[in-house]
């Protein structure tokens, strides 16, 4: 435990990763995540780590490919367009079963978009932004405090199951300041065991190979299916979510990250008006808390997804519920500011029977 410190989300993320054992960072600058490499550039050398400002995002992810293959805790970060550039490398790392941390502090898109906070990269993060059948362990922090504390969990899961972990934040979470309390003990990297697949100096041990390809007939299928077993274990063991005022709710908002913060303000406003509204916040976006949503659908008949996108996570809500409850969407694309007042208006519209402008998504 440590005392509370007022920190920027991006700085908390960098410090949190370092405390969780990160000793190598490679990245290329882009707003709104520049404080991450800036912080790492002076802080990593203090703890005997290495920081590289690479010549491009593509170079950074390939440096991570190499560094992660040594079994050490490594990290790269970027924002939406830069994450797109990294997709080939992420796919290679996933195919080579390499654990590392990647952070996406999302901005408005598509294309160069703008530098405001947005949530348009949900599909890219949860569906595999690169090619091939693979998954990432995806966590969605809702503020600076979680930015600081989630890297610990990301590395734990990444190394246990040999999967890349992604922290999906947005410009608002990256730029905001909040009291941060690091709740996990700082990891002494000397206590971390070298994984039995890690590359390095060979003192007569059996040869180790880290690669994402196998050209022999039927072998790649076997490799992929072996990996899928670990994916199933993650789906079984690593789902995280938060529920607020959900016990008696007639309508549940489903939202993550900044949208969840804004939605919570709207929930409180709705409660003051006597409306029974609660918040369901997925913390892991993959694996998605499907089972819990199905359980909730037993008593909650209306779900409202609030997203700073055209509506991406809403598809997971619909897939989870599979017609058991009505699903509505409050959508805010393009990095525009989302307010509690407008979410409240949507809540009222959805709860009022027969309001034509608020039809459930079919």
């Amino acid at each position, binding site marked *: 435990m440590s005392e509370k410190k*007022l920190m920027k989300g991006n700085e908390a993320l960098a410090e949190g990763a370092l405390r969780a054992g990160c000793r190598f960072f490679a990245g290329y600058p882009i*707003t709104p995540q520049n404080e991450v490499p800036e912080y790492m550039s002076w802080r990593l050398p203090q703890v005997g780590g290495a920081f590289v400002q690479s010549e491009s995002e593509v170079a950074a992810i390939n440096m991570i490919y190499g560094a992660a293959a040594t079994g050490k805790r490594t990290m790269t970060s970027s924002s939406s367009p830069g994450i797109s550039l990294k997709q080939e490398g992420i796919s290679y790392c996933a195919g080579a079963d390499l654990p590392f941390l990647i952070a996406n502090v999302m901005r408005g898109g598509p294309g160069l978009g703008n530098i405001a906070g947005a949530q348009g990269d949900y599909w890219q993060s949860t569906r595999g932004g690169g090619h091939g059948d693979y998954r990432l362990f995806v966590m969605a922090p809702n*503020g600076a405090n979680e930015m600081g504390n989630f890297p610990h969990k990301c590395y734990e899961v990444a190394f246990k199951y040999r999967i890349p972990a992604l922290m999906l934040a947005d410009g608002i979470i990256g*730029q*905001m*300041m*909040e*009291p941060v309390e690091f709740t996990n003990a700082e990891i002494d990297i000397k206590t971390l065991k070298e994984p039995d697949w890690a590359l390095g100096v060979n003192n007569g041990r059996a040869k180790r190979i880290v690669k994402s390809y196998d050209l022999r007939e039927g072998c790649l299928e076997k490799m992929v299916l072996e990996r899928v077993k670990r994916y199933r274990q993650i789906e079984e063991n690593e789902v995280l979510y938060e529920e607020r005022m959900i016990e008696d709710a007639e309508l549940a908002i489903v939202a993550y990250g900044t949208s969840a913060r*804004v939605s919570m303000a709207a929930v409180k406003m709705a409660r003051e008006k006597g409306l029974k509204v609660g918040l369901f916040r997925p913390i892991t976006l993959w694996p998605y808390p499907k089972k819990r949503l199905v359980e909730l659908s037993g008593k909650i008949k209306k779900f409202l997804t609030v997203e700073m996108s055209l509506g991406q996570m809403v598809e997971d809500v619909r897939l989870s519920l599979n017609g058991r409850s009505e699903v509505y969407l409050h959508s805010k694309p393009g990095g525009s500011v989302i307010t509690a007042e407008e979410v409240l208006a949507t809540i009222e519209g959805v709860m009022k029977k027969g309001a034509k402008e608020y039809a459930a998504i079919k």
Partner: protein
Amino acid sequence: MYQGIKLSGFGGQGVISAGVLLAQAGMMEGKEVSFFPSYGAEMRGGTANCSVVISSDEVTTPIVSEPDTVIVFNEPSLTKFEPLVKKGGLLIINSSLITSKAARKDIKTLYVPCNQIAGELGNGKVMNMVALGAFAAATGAITVDAIANALPKVYKKLKPEVIELNVKALKRGAQFKLN
């Protein structure tokens, strides 16, 4: 207790610094706080703003869409943010640089010649502290002492005499009273 604040002015006037200081002071007083800056193509001479929340309860959203208090340091900020002030809320105007008067009658307005007072104290840079002092006295959301205590935490490299000057500016600001 909940206080949503918006501060806005020219880049270089200490708008962002003042916001961070308020959040730090609130945190040290045991309050829940958040700070969120505008981070567009800001530069010295351009307009910068930030949002601060100080609350006895959980801070849900760090985005302050209807501020209880707006502090404006330049003319463009007045035009932009006066309409956002919550009904019955407070608007603090740096009357050294803003010649216009507030248009709204459903809010409280406090005119503080921040630059002039900072000049009298011998350092124009502390004009943002004058505004914070006025804010503390007018709202009671935070005390002048709390802001003073937060100064060395936020500005670690400031010499004691400069801290003292900032505290003087806070106290001068706190003498301004609402009519």
